[in-house]
């Protein structure tokens, strides 16, 4: 079953449908409220990779994520868009528990990866993060050689028994990240000497090297020029065959180009989730429309 079929079949069974105020079509659209816990569109999927229910995130007393429920399908590319501070990055970082290192951050609700609770007290975070990799906004290669950067994950997880195995993993990962031809002659050079776009693709290779099932990307192209961005986007499209990809982006064109579904966040609410083409052509919620037409954000 393809991703889109999964989603639409799920949409048919979706719980008590979202109240769209069809009577008041002529009503001033800004008045349409964000209802807590209510998301317009297609938030649910059959047999999802991630099943997230009533997720709330607190920074101290601040409620950064307000009762969000969402499914992320297998091998789907889903984009999170929304104005700055809307909680999309925070939500993303819940998926591999990167928020753990922030003392004041608390996560509530049910977050399941393949029907296993992500936030279970006995959950092995190391194993979780090996399955759910992450690429960050600013390229962050370690100040080591290119080879050591890619080999870092396999080494700490003991994925290679012999040097030749490790070489193979490194080569494959770099190939998948489209970087092999550029760096095969200088694997021993320090990674920090590469260009920004190369560094970011190296970070993607590094994430791929531990064979994750999911890759989270937090604005992966915001520090890159258009050419490097195009390369990374191409890479995302190729990778979507084998990985589930969640990408936070500020660029709506990027969301439109790479993702199957798009989720619009607003002030900690998940306002609308829909097939990408639908979100950008006929959004259901007027906050989404305001955002994508550039009325704010």
């Amino acid at each position, binding site marked *: 079953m393809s991703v889109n079929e999964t989603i639409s079949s799920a949409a048919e069974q979706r719980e008590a449908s979202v109240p769209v105020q069809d009577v008041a079509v002529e009503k001033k659209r800004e008045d349409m409220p964000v209802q807590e816990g209510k998301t317009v569109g297609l938030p649910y999927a059959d047999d999802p990779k991630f099943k997230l229910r009533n997720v709330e995130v607190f920074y101290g007393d601040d409620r950064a994520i307000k009762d969000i429920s969402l499914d992320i399908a297998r091998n789907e590319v889903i984009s999170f868009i929304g104005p700055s501070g809307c909680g999309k990055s925070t939500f993303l970082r819940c998926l*591999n528990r990167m928020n753990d290192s922030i003392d004041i951050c608390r996560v509530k609700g049910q977050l399941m990866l393949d029907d296993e609770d992500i936030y279970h007290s006995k959950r092995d975070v190391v194993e979780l*993060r*090996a399955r759910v990799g992450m690429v960050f906004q600013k390229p962050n290669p370690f*100040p080591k050689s290119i080879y050591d950067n890619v080999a*870092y*994950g396999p080494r700490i997880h003991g994925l290679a028994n012999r040097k030749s195995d490790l070489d193979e993993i490194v080569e494959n990962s770099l190939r998948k990240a489209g970087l092999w031809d550029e760096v095969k002659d200088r694997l021993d050079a320090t990674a*920090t000497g590469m260009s920004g776009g190369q560094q970011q693709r190296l970070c993607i290779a*590094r994430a791929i090297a531990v064979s994750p099932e999911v890759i989270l990307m937090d604005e992966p192209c915001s520090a890159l020029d258009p050419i490097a961005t195009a390369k990374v986007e191409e890479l995302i499209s190729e990778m979507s065959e084998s990985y589930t990809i969640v990408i936070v982006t500020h660029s709506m064109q990027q969301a439109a180009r790479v993702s199957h579904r798009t989720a619009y966040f607003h002030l900690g609410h998940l306002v609308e989730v829909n097939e990408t083409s639908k979100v950008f052509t006929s959004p259901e919620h007027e906050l989404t429309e305001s955002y994508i037409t550039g009325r704010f954000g």
Partner: protein
Amino acid sequence: MQTANLLPLILVLAVAAYGLAFMRSRAVAAPLGGIRNLKALPFYYAARAALWCAIPALIVLAAWAGFEGKVIQGMVISSLPQDVWPESPGQASLVLSQISNVAAGKLNPEFVPEHIAGAAGLLENLRAQSGTFKTILVLLIAALGAAFAWTRVAPHINARESVERTLRRIFFVCAAVAVLTTVGIVFSVIFETVRFFGKVPITEFLFGTSWSPQTALRADQVGAEGAFGIIPLFTGTLLISAIALLVAVPIGLLSAIYLSEYASKRVRSTVKPLLEMLAGVPTVVYGFFAALTVAPFIRDMAELVGLEASSQSALAAGLVMGIMIIPFVSSLSDDVINAVPQTLRDGSLALGATQSETMKNVIFPAALPGIIGGILLAASRAIGETMIVVMAAGLAANLTANPLDSVTTVTVQIATLLVGDQEFDSAKTLSAFALGMMLFIVTLLLNVVALKIVRKYREQYD
């Protein structure tokens, strides 16, 4: 007027110039429609007036005070009758001190030759004149400076630039003072060191294995020939420093890692200042702690296991010194570990590394140059430390690697050589300068290496 009284007077004048120029600039600006029509804010016109009032006056005052004595002395000497002119500088200073004693009333003028008494009168006269001239000149210059600044308060003149320029120069002078002081110290040490090597061959000093600086006062004296071999002192220094570093580096580094990576904010904000308090304990306190508590304890422990230990041991001094330099290592390491970008930590954690793997594989290598810099700084501090070693390690210049023996260090020897009455032409006293020179060279090399390392790797992760 005395220089000490002139200084506050110049200050008062400068403040007055500031106030006047400030009011004048506002007055100039008022008819134009406010201070925004001036090239600079009133503050700058006022500051420039204060600077022009004070700085030339201060320079003249300093120059006058610096040369006054010499000039007057020269005039007094040349006023003496030709036949009693002093033949050598030594004699001249004797005559001068006689003259100034008479002038100060400590010596009755009737007991000295007539020309001395006359010169004393001249000296007093010249001093009074010099004081008057100085006061008038300095105040005149201050007033002229202020007046000039007053005339230059005009809308089209940019006072801001000249104030900025002057401030920059003042800052430069302050920085230069520190550098020049260092250079001065180095030269005075070099000078005495060269004199020392005139008495003791440099090879004996560098390679001799025995240190006993007592030299014979009389030719027929027995048993005090003086030996100036630096090796026992340097081995003692290195032994104690090595023990200190063995204590300080692991404890300091691990506590830095704990504080920066594991401790909660609250623990960190309490423990870090407490740790840094160790650096605030006076070394003499560490010294008697080492001598009265640690050293006897070590001796007793050694006896328990059947080892012979002296009551003053390198181990005691080294341990306590290690405690003392923990904050150098921990504080600097903590800073550099914190300076490692959070993105690197995230990158490693997101790959499924644990906190300690992240520490070991990513943060520590990235912070290593800074950590080494901190350790080398701590090492140069350990090498230069005196008080603890004086009290806890003893004075016996033993050439030994046994930490339970008493040893002595370069700094301790310098201290003992220069305490008490000195004659500055004996090899014994001069050897202190040679030791100081060696010590300076060693710590300088350490610092240079530390800086090199830090600089070489500094921006690697940016």
